[in-house]
């Protein structure tokens, strides 16, 4: 290459070139940059490079990029606007490095400016898009939270002589799980309760969850038999609902009737994990309700019925499989693969309703990110009769 073509490349190459003293004073500017800026190149000599940047960009340059260049020896793809002689803004990318003298001190700054008008427009769009996504995500979370809250009872209404406690663990901020539960009066002597889990997630699951809650509450008013209540729900779920997903849920429905100081409990289970009973004597066991079909799943379902007595000091704990299926972090192991939940119940018995729910809450916290699905917990406990009452 001849000196002439090197000189031509420096002057007329496709980017602006600039040499400055370490303090930023311009020594030489190439023809391309002086043309972009509309300055006679001699007019720029001796001026500060940062004076060519917009006021806001100059603050950024003088407080950050300039010191960065001096201390680290290079700048890579910095975004600034230069101001032309006529006041127009030129979006550019700056790349620079430092020529070190033989004494180890900086001698000159070599600065290259690339026209970034198109890229800048694209970046602004990207920035705008990023802001929009953040706003949308916020809206989705608020929406999901509102929907989730609408599907849970605002307050539990236990009969006198029974304590109730509940907890809902949300696995994802921007999705709605299908867990549901309730506790409500039917007559002066009888209360109904249920807890279940609709298959799937998201808006379609939320639709089924809402329907299931109201179908159960309505069916409970007309039928004393928990198994029949589940059959009524089954009929509703088998109707054409206009949703795509499989329309089924696992659920336990039960009635509570006051007797002496405790409650007679009748439950029906449609394929739901069995509740735990924590007894006053410190023992614990599963309620015998294993089996039965999920509600809405097969044409002729069979549900499991069982009855027992909840005495003073006893607590019944219902939960969804987000708890038993939580990953422990050990290989593919799930929390309840080896009977951990029953051991957990035994170690906490006897417990009040709120004590049992609090213990499950602590357990879920300890499982942390391993809890991949929503978890609903409902505990019904009969307080011990205090002596003298």
């Amino acid at each position: 290459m001849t000196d002439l073509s090197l000189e031509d490349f420096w002057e007329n190459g496709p980017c602006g070139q600039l040499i400055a003293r370490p303090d930023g004073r311009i020594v030489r500017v190439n023809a391309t940059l002086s043309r972009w800026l509309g300055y006679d190149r001699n007019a720029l000599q001796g001026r500060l490079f940062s004076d060519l940047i917009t006021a806001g960009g100059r603050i950024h340059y003088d407080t950050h990029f300039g010191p960065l260049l001096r201390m680290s020896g290079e700048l890579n793809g910095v975004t600034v606007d230069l101001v032309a002689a006529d006041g127009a803004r030129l979006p550019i990318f700056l790349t620079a490095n430092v020529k070190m003298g033989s004494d180890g001190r900086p001698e000159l700054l070599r600065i290259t400016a690339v026209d970034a008008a198109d890229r800048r427009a694209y970046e602004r769009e990207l920035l705008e898009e990023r802001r929009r996504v953040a706003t949308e995500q916020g809206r989705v979370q608020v929406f999901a939270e509102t929907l989730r809250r609408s599907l849970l009872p605002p307050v539990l209404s236990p009969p006198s002589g029974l304590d109730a406690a509940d907890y809902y663990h949300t696995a994802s901020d921007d999705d709605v799980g299908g867990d549901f539960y309730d506790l409500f009066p039917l007559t002066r002597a009888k209360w109904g309760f249920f807890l279940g889990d609709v298959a799937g997630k998201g808006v379609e699951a939320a639709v089924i969850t809402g329907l299931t809650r109201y179908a159960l509450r309505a069916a409970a008013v007309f039928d004393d038999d928990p198994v029949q209540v589940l059959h009524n729900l089954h009929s509703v779920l088998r109707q054409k609902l206009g949703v795509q997903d499989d329309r089924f849920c696992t659920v336990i429905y039960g009635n509570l009737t006051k007797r002496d100081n405790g409650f007679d409990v009748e439950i029906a289970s449609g394929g739901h994990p069995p509740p735990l009973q924590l007894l006053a004597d410190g023992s614990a066991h599963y309620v015998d309700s294993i089996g039965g079909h999920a509600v809405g799943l097969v044409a002729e379902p069979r549900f499991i019925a069982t009855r027992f007595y909840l005495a003073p000091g006893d607590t019944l704990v219902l939960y969804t499989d987000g708890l038993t299926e939580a990953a422990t972090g050990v290989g593919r192991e799930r929390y309840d693969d080896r009977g951990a939940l029953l051991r957990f119940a035994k170690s906490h018995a006897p417990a009040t309703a709120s004590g049992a729910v609090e213990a499950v809450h602590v357990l879920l916290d300890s499982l942390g990110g391993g809890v991949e699905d929503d978890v609903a917990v409902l505990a019904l406990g009969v307080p011990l009769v205090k002596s003298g009452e």
Partner: protein
Amino acid sequence: MDVYARNNINIVGAADGPLVVLAHGFGCDQQLWRLVVDRLKSDFRLLLIDHVGCGESDPACWDAQKYSSLAGYAADVVDIVRELDLHDVVFVGHSVAAMIGALAVIAEPGRFAKLVMLTPSPRYIDDGDYRGGFSRSDIDDLLESLELNYLGWSHAMAPVIMGTQDRPQLQDELAETFCRNDPAHARVFARTTFLSDNRNDLAQIPVPTLVIECAQDTIAPREVGAYVHENIPDSRLVTLDATGHCPQVSAPDATAAAISAFVRSA
């Protein structure tokens, strides 16, 4: 509270020398003091900090509300001198940290001996006859510049934060981590810095103060340096033959000499 972790406190230099705190301004972190540290460490005990939201400060301590005012940063400085039970402290603050130091000295005068304000400005935006050098729209321009330049930040910083990159030599590491601040925190610090008005605090500074300005500094021009000097009761002004806003980088000899002479002066 662990102020060491919160503010990434590093103590270097002569163990029995006078204690000098070095606090960085907006846009960088304590690494910006390196050249001055090299020149002062044989004579002084130097305590370097990163403001919360900058450098290697503890991200868990970030509080957008607290750090939306310079008083929040000043409260951290007061925490540090109390927790470490420091006395006769000489506080050297660069740029906005000069005002942060002023607020800390006013709040806890008993522990500070002197204040050094390196290229300070009590207000960046013009106001009536007062010339700060900038308009409100210039500051909006700065905030946009921050955003545009941080577009690639999260991507570029991921390997550094995760600590998974191969450890190259120190110089490369410096280039990667030097003055890299979390963009969301930098935006808050920028607003706090450039929209603050601390002109009325200058008269309250109760300790001897050295104001160091540069002969040519577009961010803190000479008339601002003169204003700061005139409004602090016991102050002197030194003008360095230097260009730019960071004389600790562009003129480390002169900057170190000015600090050193002032700390030793009676």
